[in-house]
């Protein structure tokens, strides 16, 4: 299994660092981080095309679902798999996020040692 190139968008610095470390330790991928929706759009506008986008749901100014709409309009990003990460535990919220076209939803807090495997499992289940 080849390592993934991942764009991770989260306003929480601790979670950005932990996610990056999780994938480094597991060898599951290389993570490029963005602290906001605007920062993520700048990264993508520079031409970077990740294999996967990990997207926090609740962020100030631009939330994850709002950012997803803008990402989908970018050249080459219409079908990039997106996995939402959220601390919201309600089933209805999970279904709403899946309904937006996400490949999956990861609940926060997550286990850093199994994050890479969880992501792989969600990608394997997602319709291509």
């Amino acid at each position, binding site marked *: 299994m080849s390592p993934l190139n991942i764009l991770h968008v989260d*306003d929480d*610095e*601790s979670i950005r660092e932990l996610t990056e*470390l999780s994938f480094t330790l597991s060898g599951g991928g290389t993570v490029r981080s963005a602290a906001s929706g605007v920062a993520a759009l700048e990264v993508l506008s520079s031409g970077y095309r990740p294999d996967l986008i990990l997207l*926090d749901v609740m962020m100030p100014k631009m939330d994850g679902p709002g950012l997803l709409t803008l990402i989908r309009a970018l050249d080459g990003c219409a079908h990039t798999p997106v996995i939402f990460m959220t*601390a919201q535990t309600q089933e209805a919220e999970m279904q709403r996020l899946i309904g937006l076209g996400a490949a999956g939803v990861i609940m926060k807090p997550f286990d850093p040692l199994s994050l890479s495997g969880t992501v792989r499992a969600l990608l394997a289940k997602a319709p291509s």
Partner: protein
Amino acid sequence: MTDPLESLKALFIARCGEDLARLRRAKEEGDISGVGRLAHRLAGSAGSFGFPEISRLALIVDEGCRAGAAAPELALNELMAVLDQLNVGYDRLD
């Protein structure tokens, strides 16, 4: 050799001290959305660093702030007490 996860955990604990100060300020100023934002962040992160109790309490505060006009007092006080304990322990180790 230093465990990189332990290093990040120490950094997280140090940031909890800053979060506690922000929570106290937001509570004093009656800034419900500020309390909710901080609690939401802690709810989503603390458990990943080995502090599920902080995540549990923070989730109660987060959901309470979103549902009502006031932060749930009991859970907020408990959350601040746990953060304070963590902070004191960290200061002793430092």
